[in-house]
């Protein structure tokens, strides 16, 4: 891999051991990928603070510097961690103190994370604490090189914002924050961003649920490929595209998609394919839609629901407002928990708008920084949960060993109020 003189100096230690270790990791990683060079980035979204058993052990051995070295730089040396060289934010992590006592997630973990926040914020990491940094001010511009992890954020960054990032990991983002470099490979290269698969919706895709199911179908069909999607698509909003992208990245490994006329790199279908031949479309019809619905609902037997999870990826202010409206003046059934996950910055706005109070009056909770999948903890004793998120319906049964129902927001709220799942696929 070609290195600039500046990069060689960084590798050789001119800017300290941590930067040298970061360059070493980026070089090994870039060479493994077959990248010809690195590129500059000023926008890193990674993860350093969230506790895990492996990380807690490393912190015990050598503090956060040790944990950062091993996990975020793949380096076993004792090093000082300097200030990040370029703007870097923390994605979602473990629960914050607003979740203390609500689940088996330990207070020790919450405290450990608090100390991590202090340590890394002193080193320039912005603790946005959300899987949706684009909802709280981290909005890269078109063509900007980014180093982001979190699959749902990556697909949004590439597809909706038209910025360029691969699906990075804890180590590559740690190294990118300290160096402002990331391998120029994959989605950074313009010709790799064109669509190579086509999926056509023959049934209307309008609601939040529709976009999630369609995304889940697209991901299953194309796996790691780059779909353009056409057909009966209503004008999507941020929440629809957030949900669609998250679902494509859950059932498959989609990192970029195009919607001609909607997303920035696809003014037309031809542009989405970069002038190459447009392949035959895979059809998403009534049978396919039904099959996706049944797949997402194949992990529920009992219709006695005891937990409702909303906000995955993290809820927007509009979504919180809608949840508050549906819950206003009502009361959750005893024994049913309802959690709405959102970034802390949006929670502050939800507080000011009275949404938080409306949700809490009904017995629900608006929680920040994390989600049950990330923290591997739901309310104690949960057996059957319901969600409007295709991603959580996919992951949570495996992570927590619980049953799942997938439906609309209305159906989820109704389940919270009655303790019964009564969802069905609208015609």
């Amino acid at each position, binding site marked *: 891999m070609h290195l600039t003189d500046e990069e060689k100096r960084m590798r050789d230690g001119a800017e300290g051991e941590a930067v040298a270790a970061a360059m070493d990791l980026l070089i090994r990683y870039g060479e493994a990928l077959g990248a010809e060079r690195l590129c500059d980035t000023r926008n890193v979204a990674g993860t350093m603070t969230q506790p895990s*058993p*492996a990380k807690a052990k490393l912190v015990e051995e050598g503090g956060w510097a040790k944990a950062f070295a091993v996990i975020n730089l793949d380096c076993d040396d004792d090093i000082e961690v300097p200030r990040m060289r370029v703007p870097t934010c923390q994605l979602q992590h473990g629960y914050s103190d607003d979740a203390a006592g609500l689940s088996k997630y330990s207070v020790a973990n919450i405290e450990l994370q608090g100390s991590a926040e202090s340590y890394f914020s002193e080193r320039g990491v912005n603790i946005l604490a959300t899987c949706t940094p684009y909802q709280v001010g981290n909005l890269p511009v078109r063509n900007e090189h980014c180093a982001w992890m979190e699959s749902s954020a990556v697909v949004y960054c590439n597809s909706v914002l038209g910025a360029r990032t691969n699906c990075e990991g804890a180590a590559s983002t740690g190294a990118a924050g300290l160096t402002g470099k990331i391998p120029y490979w994959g989605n950074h290269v313009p010709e790799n961003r064109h669509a190579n698969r086509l999926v056509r919706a023959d049934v209307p895709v309008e609601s939040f649920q529709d976009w999630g199911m369609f995304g889940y179908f697209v991901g299953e069909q194309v796996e790691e490929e780059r779909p353009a999607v056409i057909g009966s698509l209503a004008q999507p909003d941020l929440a629809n595209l957030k949900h669609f992208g998250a679902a494509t990245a859950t059932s498959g*490994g989609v990192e970029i998609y195009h919607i001609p006329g909607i997303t920035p790199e696809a003014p037309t279908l031809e542009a989405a394919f970069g002038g190459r031949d447009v392949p035959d479309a895979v059809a998403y019809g009534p049978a396919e839609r039904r099959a996706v619905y049944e797949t997402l609902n194949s992990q529920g037997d009992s219709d006695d629901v005891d937990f409702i999870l909303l906000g995955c990826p993290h809820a927007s202010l509009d979504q919180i407002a809608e949840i508050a409206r549906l819950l206003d003046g009502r009361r959750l059934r005893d024994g049913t928990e309802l959690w709405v996950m959102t970034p802390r910055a949006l929670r502050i706005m939800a507080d000011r708008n009275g949404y938080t109070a409306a949700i809490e009056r009904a017995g629900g909770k608006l929680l920040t920084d994390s989600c049950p999948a990330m923290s591997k903890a739901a309310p104690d004793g949960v057996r059957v949960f319901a969600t409007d998120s295709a991603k959580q319906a996919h992951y949570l049964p495996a*992570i927590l060993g619980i049953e799942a129902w997938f439906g609309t927001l209305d159906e989820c709220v109704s389940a919270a109020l009655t303790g019964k799942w009564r969802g069905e696929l609208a015609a």
Partner: protein
Amino acid sequence: MTGTMLEFHGRGIVPGVVEAEALVTTETISGFGGIDVATGTVIEPRHELFGVCFTGKVLVFPGAKGSSGWSGFFQSTRLLGTAPAAFVFNVMTTKAALGAIVTRIPTVVGASPDPVATIRTGDLVRVDGDRGIVTVLSR
């Protein structure tokens, strides 16, 4: 096995040489939500390796899918002593490449003929991450 030794040539992306039993899947693997790092076991309910432990095995698979947590989850298997002995996969992605590096196990990518179609679970294989060669030693 009798006859010619099966050999697969690809690109070594993490150096080192190991010999171990193969664990083969035709399905891509999810890190986050797909494996339990404490036990080194696949936990995705619909996966053909559901409930199977990969610790100490040469994991032969098409590639990585799902969350960007992939590399961190496999890195945790190294830190907790439940890692595979080697990786052999077909499709290069950032997740799998970074995952291999931080798991620090010999890794060969894009080998020919297709290892997923040819190597069988239980085969004794040698993975040479220095030269990018995978060899079936016995089956």
